[in-house]
């Protein structure tokens, strides 16, 4: 209960204004607000380490600054916007409310595991230790991270989870150590909520809304159901580790959210903003999250500013760089700060005595054991591209290649890390590969959910659309539906159809 209060009041309240500014009335705002709050707490912890002060004071400064900036931006936007454009937006609440209810209801199922106050190994050795250090203030944090006796706690890990744990302890005291674990699990649920609402948006988005006739309602229902199932599936792939306070699901789900909103849903400022926030959260949660977020942000930059774009090259490249650096700035700043104080990660400190081939074989076997969903996802991708490609294009979704490139990029990075790293490979894989592959697993389940929605749409609309399908060279075009009335786009999806 205390953790829920902390999530809603301590993190959600300071994050609600920026969340609504980005997501408008999309239900993702509910999950984005605590994630933004957690991101601000991480920035506060970085300030505590670099400049001093306590996490509470720094958090208040960051929260006030961010909210003032959002208010200023909003006032400027209201002044510039046409009054008619603001007034004529359709106000549809049914689907956002239903989506929110289903996603929250489904997230409640795995969260019941919090009744058992379990604290896992890493949750103790890494996250609770770091939360104590952040709680203790600048001196405690600086000396703690530099203390060789704490080397086991991976002192270079980013500060989001410890900062949130420390804030919770500041609010409620150190009487219940499980509070920090509760916060981690609830934040993971929020990140999965962002993924789920993104999947729901594939079926409630402008493409399907515009399709009209038979396909709309079944696809919408399928999207909401798939969104709920996806939220539970996310916890399923992470197993017991997630409810024990491990942070792998948090960064993986946040990164998956960035992929869904930035590399799957149609182009829009809203989707881009949500993707950036999710990527920033992933980058501030774990080192793997930072690397994955950078890969995703590069792909988002290339999708929104394609290499084929006409115009001044230097300016376009500057924009692409800004697309990557801006959301990754907090994570990169932490990585720079932690190296500046002389703390480095332990993975590459010593060379392994094992042959690279031995390590590679063990890594492939270890990773494959956790990717049972991959063949199904590949088969569904092939069938989807054959049977439901036009429906996917009509829904305005991106080419699935973006998602698969992200998956492959993550797997290649993981593979290289295991092969080049210094730890004994079988021990290393045994203690981590089930968690390091969570991101790819979540993404593949999300891909299944998206194709499911598209297939439902395709099955119900093929009579309407079969004869009207036009060849499309652009992978993300939303063609007009001949004879079908275009619905006004719901306001909570404002901005999505700007291709």
């Amino acid at each position, binding site marked *: 209960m205390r953790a829920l209060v902390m999530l809603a009041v301590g993190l959600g309240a300071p994050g609600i204004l920026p969340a609504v500014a980005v997501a408008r009335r999309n239900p993702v705002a509910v999950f984005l607000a605590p994630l933004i709050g957690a991101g601000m707490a991480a920035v506060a912890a970085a300030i505590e380490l670099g400049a001093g002060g306590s996490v509470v004071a720094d958090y208040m400064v960051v929260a006030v600054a961010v909210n003032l900036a959002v208010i200023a931006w909003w006032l400027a936007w209201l002044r510039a916007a046409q009054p008619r454009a603001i007034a004529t937006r359709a106000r549809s609440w049914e689907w956002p409310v239903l989506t929110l209810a289903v996603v929250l209801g489904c997230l409640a*199922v*795995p969260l*019941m*595991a919090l*009744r*058992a*106050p*379990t*604290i896992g*190994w890493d949750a*103790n*050795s890494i996250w*609770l*230790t770091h939360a*104590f*250090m952040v709680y203790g203030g600048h001196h*405690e944090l600086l000396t*703690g991270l530099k*203390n*060789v*006796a*704490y*080397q*086991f*706690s991976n002192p270079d890990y980013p500060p989001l989870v410890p900062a949130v744990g420390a804030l919770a302890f500041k609010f409620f005291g*150190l009487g219940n*150590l499980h509070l920090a674990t509760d916060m981690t699990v609830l934040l993971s649920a929020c990140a999965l909520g962002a993924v789920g609402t993104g999947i729901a948006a594939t079926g409630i988005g402008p493409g399907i809304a515009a399709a009209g006739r038979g396909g709309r309602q079944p696809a919408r229902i399928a999207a909401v159901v*798939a969104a709920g*199932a*996806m939220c*539970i*599936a996310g*916890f*399923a792939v992470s*197993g*017991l580790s997630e*409810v024990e306070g491990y942070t792998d699901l948090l960064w993986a789900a946040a990164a998956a959210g960035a992929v869904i909103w930035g590399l799957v849903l149609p182009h829009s400022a809203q989707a881009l903003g949500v993707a950036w926030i999710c990527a920033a959260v992933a980058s501030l949660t774990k080192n793997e999250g930072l690397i994955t977020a950078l890969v995703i942000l590069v792909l988002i930059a290339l999708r929104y500013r394609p290499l084929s774009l006409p115009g001044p090259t230097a300016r376009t490249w500057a924009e692409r760089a800004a697309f990557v650096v801006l959301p990754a700035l907090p994570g990169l700043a932490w990585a720079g700060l932690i190296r500046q104080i002389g703390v480095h990660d332990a993975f590459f400190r010593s060379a392994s005595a094992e042959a690279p081939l031995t390590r590679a074989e063990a890594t492939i076997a270890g990773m494959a054991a956790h990717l049972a*969903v991959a063949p*199904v996802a590949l*088969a*569904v991708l092939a*069938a*989807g591209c*054959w*049977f*439901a490609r036009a429906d996917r294009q009509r829904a305005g979704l991106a080419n699935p290649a973006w998602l698969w490139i992200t998956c492959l990029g993550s797997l290649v990075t993981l593979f290289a890390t295991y092969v080049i790293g210094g730890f004994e490979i079988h021990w290393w894989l045994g203690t981590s590969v089930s968690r390091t592959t969570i991101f790819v697993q979540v993404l593949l*389940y999300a891909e*299944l*959910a998206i*194709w*499911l929605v*598209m*297939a*439902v749409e*395709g*099955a119900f609309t*093929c*009579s309407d659309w*079969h*004869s009207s399908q036009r060849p499309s060279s652009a992978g993300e075009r939303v063609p007009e539906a001949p004879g079908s009335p275009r619905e006004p786009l719901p306001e909570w999806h404002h901005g999505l159809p700007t291709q």
Partner: protein
Amino acid sequence: MGERSGRVGKRIGCAAIVAAAGVALALSVHHDVQLTTSVTTPQWIAEQTVELQQEECIYHAIRAQVPKGAAVYVASPDLYATQRLAELSTLWAVPQANIANARWRLSLVPARGHCSGLALEVRRT
């Protein structure tokens, strides 16, 4: 005829996609429900509550038996207990990597009645 068979083919293909994706998602949901059920049994909750109480007991024992700010060396028979001692010493004592720099040596030993079967042992180095 060709158009009609195309429609039927598309419907069958879409149904296959829905079935494959639906089954995969449903299996995953089923797995999570089983997992959640297994960790919400009264016995499991009781065991985890005891472990948490043990951890909080050790946390308070450190604060009761070790002077604030003391340089400590943590050493227990197993790695988990050693790391837990270092973690729970944070904010109170300063763990040292080298025993020569420490004034106190902390370890967890089996004991009846203390912290659910464990007791904090504090010795001067």
